[in-house]
């Protein structure tokens, strides 16, 4: 009997371990919703001074890096994709278990919602990140119709079919992406869509909020009030605003006034912010990296002027905000590099200390190409002027203009085992003609057959920051 019990226990233990691992692998790993919560749990207690709640309008428009860098605000965006206010309420409830912020910013875009329930993927994104507790159960129950509760609890049945889409992060978790190392909930949108601003400031009409939305809008404000935490309701700028939206915001503003809560519709301050949707919008709902920096500068200034918010810069307990800020800055630098079309501008940006450069001179392009000499000189490319070759440069390691490694003659290959990726450079001779290959995780990067191919690997974001070619056959045009 004793042996049997030991056997059963061991078997069940192994089985549970295997199933738990499978659950961990298959869990949905969305940045927009789930990671906001899971990384929030890892923060030290009472380190968030400004807690920002809301939908993607919060986590794409408010740049936590800017708030930190310019004002020393330790902010965290706890949001989810199209997050309904009932989920915002439970996110706040969960947040207040470990944090006592100096200010709560409630991004109020979702006051315009007019549905009892949102789509399944958003229900998952806005609830599955929560730790198991009665609040999580309540959050799921309020998010889905009663007859469908069993489809969301247990969670596993929702995501076990993900075997067709598994990727590295599913096995390595948040460690697979440095974005989440010191994440503060902000996702920087790099897209640019030229749009025009719409002036709806003249709309004074008021449309009642959807009943469920209004209930949880009020409950969220009341919860903050109960804890004596100041609240501001913010509508961040977006190009897709309409008269209908504005009429709903007017009602939301009235409700906020009932609670003596500030209501800031930033759409009325586009000029002061400096927003120009021609270059600052990612899409009709979100700002891009240029727009979110401008808006966050404006917002930080507003918050500093209207509320008592600590400046944590220099405090060792808040180093992760600095790292987050550095990360975002690096993301933006990478984007600026990708957008550069002039060789001189690219040359300047390539000197970033965080870059590893993998360069190949292909086809008829040689180290002696006269028009490329300034470019070669800036990267330290040397060698026989009659030949091409493959070159590797680590800006931080060399500290000089010398290349760390290059090859022009004979077969050559070199491998780099980086944390997140494997890179390889090869130079293969065939009947007197050389072919060069730059490969990242089995994907070859080659933009031109005749010219210079450059792969820029960024050590901060642990990703290929840019890959471009200088096509000698097309008047040295930059090709991406």
């Amino acid at each position, binding site marked *: 009997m004793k042996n*049997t019990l030991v*056997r*059963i226990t061991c*078997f069940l233990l*192994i*089985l549970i371990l*295997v*199933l738990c691992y*499978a659950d961990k692998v*298959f869990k949905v790993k969305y940045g927009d919703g789930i990671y906001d919560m899971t990384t929030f749990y890892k923060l030290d207690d009472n380190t968030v001074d400004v807690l920002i709640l809301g939908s993607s309008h919060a986590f794409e428009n408010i740049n936590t890096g800017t708030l930190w860098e310019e004002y020393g605000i330790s902010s965290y965006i706890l949001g989810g994709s199209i997050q309904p206010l009932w989920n915002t309420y439970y996110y706040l409830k969960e947040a207040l278990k470990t944090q006592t912020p100096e200010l709560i910013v409630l991004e109020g875009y979702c006051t315009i919602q007019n549905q009892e329930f949102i789509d*399944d993927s958003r229900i998952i994104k806005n609830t599955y990140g929560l730790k198991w507790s009665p609040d999580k159960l309540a959050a799921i129950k309020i998010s889905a119709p009663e007859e*469908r509760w*069993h*489809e969301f609890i247990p969670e*596993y*049945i*929702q995501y*076990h*079919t993900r*075997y*067709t889409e598994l990727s590295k992060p599913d096995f390595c978790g948040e460690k697979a992406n440095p974005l989440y190392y010191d994440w503060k909930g902000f996702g920087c949108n790099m897209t640019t869509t030229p749009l025009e601003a719409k002036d709806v400031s003249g709309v004074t009409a008021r449309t009642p909020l959807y009943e469920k939305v209004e209930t949880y809008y009020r409950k969220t404000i009341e919860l903050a009030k109960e804890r004596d935490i100041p609240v501001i309701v913010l509508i961040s700028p977006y190009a897709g605003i309409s008269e209908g939206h504005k009429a709903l915001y007017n009602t939301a503003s009235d409700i906020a006034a009932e609670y003596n809560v500030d209501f800031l519709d930033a759409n009325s301050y586009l000029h002061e912010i400096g927003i120009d949707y021609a270059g600052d919008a990612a899409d009709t709902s979100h700002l891009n990296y240029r727009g979110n920096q401008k808006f966050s500068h404006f917002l930080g200034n507003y918050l500093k002027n209207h509320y008592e918010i600590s400046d944590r810069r220099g405090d060792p307990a808040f180093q992760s905000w600095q790292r987050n800020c550095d990360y975002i800055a690096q993301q933006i630098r990478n984007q600026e590099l990708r957008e550069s079309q002039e060789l001189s501008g690219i040359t300047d940006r390539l000197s970033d200390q965080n870059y590893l450069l993998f360069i190949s001179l292909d086809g008829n392009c040689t180290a002696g190409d006269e028009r490329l000499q300034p470019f070669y000189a800036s990267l330290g490319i040397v060698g026989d002027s009659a030949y091409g070759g493959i070159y590797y440069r680590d800006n931080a390691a060399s500290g000089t203009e010398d290349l760390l490694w290059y090859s022009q003659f004979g077969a050559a290959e070199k491998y780099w085992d980086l944390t997140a990726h494997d890179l390889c450079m090869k130079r293969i001779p065939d009947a007197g003609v050389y072919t060069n290959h730059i490969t990242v995780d089995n994907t070859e990067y080659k933009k031109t057959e005749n010219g210079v191919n450059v792969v820029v690997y960024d050590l901060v974001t642990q990703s290929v920051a840019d890959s471009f070619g200088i096509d000698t056959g097309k008047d040295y045009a930059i090709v991406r």
Partner: protein
Amino acid sequence: MLFNSIDFMIFFPIVLSIYFVIPKKLRAIWLLIASYYFYMSWNPTYALLIAASTVVTYCSALLIDARSSKGTYKHAKYKKLLLLAALFINLGILGLFKYGNFVIDSIGGLLQALHVTAAPRRFDFLLPVGISFYTFQALGYLIDVYRGDIKAETDPVRYALFVSFFPQLVAGPIERSKNLLSQLKNISVIRLWDAKRVTSGAILMVWGYFMKMVIADRAAILVNTVFDSYQMYGSSELLLAALAFSLQIYCDFGSYSLIAAGSARIMGVELMENFNAPYFARSVRDFWSRWHISLSTWLRDYLYIPLGGNRKGRIRKACNTMIVFLVSGLWHGADWHFVAWGGIHGFYQVAADFLKPCKNKLIEKLQINTECFSWKFLQTLLTYILVVFAWIFFRADNISSSLLYIKRIFTKPTPWLLFNGGIYALGLSRIEMNILFFSTLLLFMADCVRYKMKISIDRFLMRQNLWFEWLAVICAILMIFVFGEYGPAFDSQQFIYFQF
């Protein structure tokens, strides 16, 4: 409450836990309560039908048994009358609920063919789940008592449990009174904690879930896609769907029997084997000795043999065979295409009997070696092809659809689809097809073990070293968790045999 539902995952452990701890005397009544709860989870009203069937057969059996000791003509006649009355009531309920609309529709069709305008009213009730199973089980018991093979059961609780025992209530196997009732008599002395028995039952359940959730329900996606619009497909897709259906119905029905046998075994009750590597059969007769064994043997014992079996000449034997298979077809469903399916199987057997001398002569003349692998393989392959052909009639909506389906196989060749990836557009992506293929390979291996070593998967695994047994079971559970067809994105397939 489906075996593959969350409800059953909660229901079974609760039933089991209480079954293990309550006083021995209460075990039967507890299982009876659980069985009725299980059945009523579909439709509480239909519990009245099973209760009526139980009461009628219980009382009739007692009355018949009371007359058995008196061997006079009068008593024999009385017994016969009682038996016929009970048969009439039970088959009447079955006929009304299962075949009522079929008869009405058939009459309507006939009238329409005769240009007679009539709109017969149809019954608007649902088919009670498992009615064919428990009716046949109760009638088998009654006939056994009538024949004097067993004594009538006096304990009403035990008898009611025999009819409604939840693991096999709605989709078999159709148990025999000699097997199940005698075990239920000893239920209070069953040693509940027997690690080997419980392990064996649990392995059967796991394998059953694997067959149902990983194979049957995945194959069903392809089958439904093609059969629902067969007019849009050519030979490759239609053949593939027919093959997939043979896999689906085997895994669907076989899995139910395995889960039933496994759950019963955990509770200390052995159910009869219902499937024995059926697609390894070397003749259609052999197939029926391996497929739905509990129904085949029921029809043999209570229909074929009473009709005279093979004792009254070749013609009579052929007629009896056809009757049995037509009844079998009708038992499977109230529609002519099921009757056609049964008829085809009956025809296979009759034809095999009549052609046997020719076949033997041919073998002798051509000096064919019948002991080698190639001959056995050919027999298995031909049997499988014949069975798959008949399955088309079983799965199609009606006979004319079946014929059109078969016609398209021959008239719309699309062999290129096997090479250009076209088969991955039939509801299953490439990865889903790979999972289906790999799972089917595992099923093939398990059936090989069953066929060659003559032991079931649980016994085979329990003979291996512990690490292998655990590895196999854990991998199967993991595959069910990961690749099982369940969850909101999946339209859960009922066990096919529930409709019978």
